[in-house]
């Protein structure tokens, strides 16, 4: 099957896209170049078909699907708790955010309460994950534009955050720490000291990256006025996240439809009006500083209390209770063999991921397995503006544009 697909790969693609390229390409005036799935600057397996006139890009046709994993169909075959494991792998740079949005959807469907300590810790981990994701973005974006030392600095900072996540959940990236009803277990004693230590050193590191890039002449020439996105286009193409805020529309789901206790924390939503690559860079740098501010407030106000809901129909009882209460044993047994069964209905829950609006549409038919899970991923929607903003740029600028939209192919293909 692989051999025959290899034969049809090239023929099918040209016939299918004849209506998308201009007449000059069919006559042979312009070059059709394949920026293939394996490329150092495409941040994953993205295939772009470029129509080039010399070095200038006339048209870009993205071809996605090289990382399609069938997660939505696979989640329909597993119970709600087992499906939570697969959610980490969708946007693998924002694993805590994926867990959070899935748990918010399940909690909304089941009308489950979450104790305040769990909400505060969720906020801390989500904001730390946002910083980690922006660090990877900054490292790879700068690497594409030629600044290699920024890449090494960013990954060094990221190790601190991965240590904190490993301390909580046991795994550096795919923790599945956030579960429906709260968290998996309470944070260990070293957590607070580690977070405070990180908050002490990190603002100085952001200043270091600023000093390296923000007023750098080469960086300015390569990013200013490249890839301008107007606010009307952004809204019409459904763009959310830093590309939308870099074009002037101050829309952030943490402020407009707060979840998990975000209304208690005081932070601003950075917005710029130019809409070019430099504006998006400044928005994300400022977002990192605001995340530090949120984590500082959250860890100062961290309340005491339980970390999982008391609702025994959805959350299993603590193990100590199993020795004394028969009901606890029955609940434990039902949850472990069959899984919990939320009521019939459909909900939509959305969070603000580092890339934009990450949403889950969850439909249940009263059985222990989800009937339909649809992931509204920000990269899938944001990718569509690439042909629009790359008209007339050079190939080297195209690399910067792919980086500035900040796509993660796991998000696009699911």
């Amino acid at each position: 099957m692989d051999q025959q697909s290899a034969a049809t790969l090239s023929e099918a693609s040209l016939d299918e896209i004849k209506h998308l390229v201009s007449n000059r390409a069919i006559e042979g005036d312009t070059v059709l170049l394949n920026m293939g799935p394996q490329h150092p600057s495409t941040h994953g397996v993205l295939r772009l078909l470029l129509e080039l006139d010399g070095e200038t890009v006339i048209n870009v046709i993205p071809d996605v699907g090289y990382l399609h994993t069938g997660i939505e169909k696979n989640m329909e075959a597993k119970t709600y708790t087992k499906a939570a494991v697969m959610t980490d792998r969708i946007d693998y740079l924002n694993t805590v955010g994926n867990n959070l949005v899935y748990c918010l959807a399940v909690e909304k469907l089941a009308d489950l309460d979450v104790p305040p300590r769990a909400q505060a810790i969720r906020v801390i981990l989500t904001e730390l994950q946002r910083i980690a994701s922006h660090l990877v973005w900054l490292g790879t974006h700068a690497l594409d534009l030629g600044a290699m030392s920024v890449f090494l600095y960013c990954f060094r900072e990221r190790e601190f955050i991965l240590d904190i996540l490993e301390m909580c959940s046991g795994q550096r990236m795919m923790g599945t720490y956030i579960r429906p009803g709260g968290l998996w277990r309470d944070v260990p004693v070293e957590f607070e000291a580690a977070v405070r230590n990180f908050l002490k050193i990190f603002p100085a590191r952001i200043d270091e990256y600023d000093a390296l890039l923000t007023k750098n002449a080469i960086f300015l020439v390569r990013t200013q006025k490249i890839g301008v996105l107007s606010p009307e286009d952004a809204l019409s193409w459904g763009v959310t996240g830093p590309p939308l805020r870099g074009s002037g529309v101050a829309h952030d789901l943490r402020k407009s439809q707060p979840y998990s206790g975000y209304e208690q924390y005081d932070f601003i939503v950075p917005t710029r009006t130019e809409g070019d690559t430099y504006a998006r860079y400044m928005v994300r740098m400022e977002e990192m500083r605001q995340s530090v501010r949120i984590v500082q407030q959250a860890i100062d106000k961290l309340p005491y209390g339980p970390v999982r809901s008391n609702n025994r129909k959805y959350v299993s009882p603590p193990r100590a209770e199993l020795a004394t209460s028969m009901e606890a044993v029955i609940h434990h047994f039902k949850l472990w063999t069959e899984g919990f069964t939320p009521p019939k209905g459909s909900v939509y829950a959305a969070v603000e991921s580092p890339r934009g609006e990450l949403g889950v549409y969850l439909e249940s038919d009263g059985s222990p397995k989800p009937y339909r899970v649809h992931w509204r991923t920000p990269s899938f929607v944001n990718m569509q503006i690439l042909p629009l903003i790359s008209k007339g740029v050079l190939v080297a600028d195209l690399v910067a544009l792919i980086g500035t939209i900040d796509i993660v192919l796991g998000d696009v293909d699911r």
Partner: protein
Amino acid sequence: MDEHLQSAVDALKERFAAQVSEFRGEVSLILVPECIVDACRALHDEFSFELLSEETAVDYWPQETPRFHVVYRVRSLRDNLILGLRVPLNGITPVIPSIVEVYKNANWFERELWDMFGIRAEGHPDLRRILMPYDWEGHPLRKDYPLGYEEVAFSFNQKEIDDRKPFAKE
């Protein structure tokens, strides 16, 4: 319900005979396929629902009528609202009018609907498969499409599975 949302819902209810349902604080309207483009245009132009958040489908096989429900979600940033629309569809290869002229990002959403469910979007400029390979047959997210899993290997069947598996030669 918020007053802006109430006015939008009332307008759609009287113009297109939509049925309203509310669950967990979210409002959903059920519409017929013929009037979805006009409804979306009304929401976009008059009630300032600027953003299409998502467009997806649910398969209710083996129930045949309706077989699919296409679900839309629109957001209003000016009034901070969110509204869901559902369109029931029958048949093996149903057709729905495309809303690409109203919300441009429906382009890839409708390609994914075609790829995963086999729902054609009429009036779409470029309907071809987006996530699966070009020559794939079938529409994976339908309920009658198998999951396609491989048998889990334990010690008693490990050898049979390894003999059957197409390992690559040099």
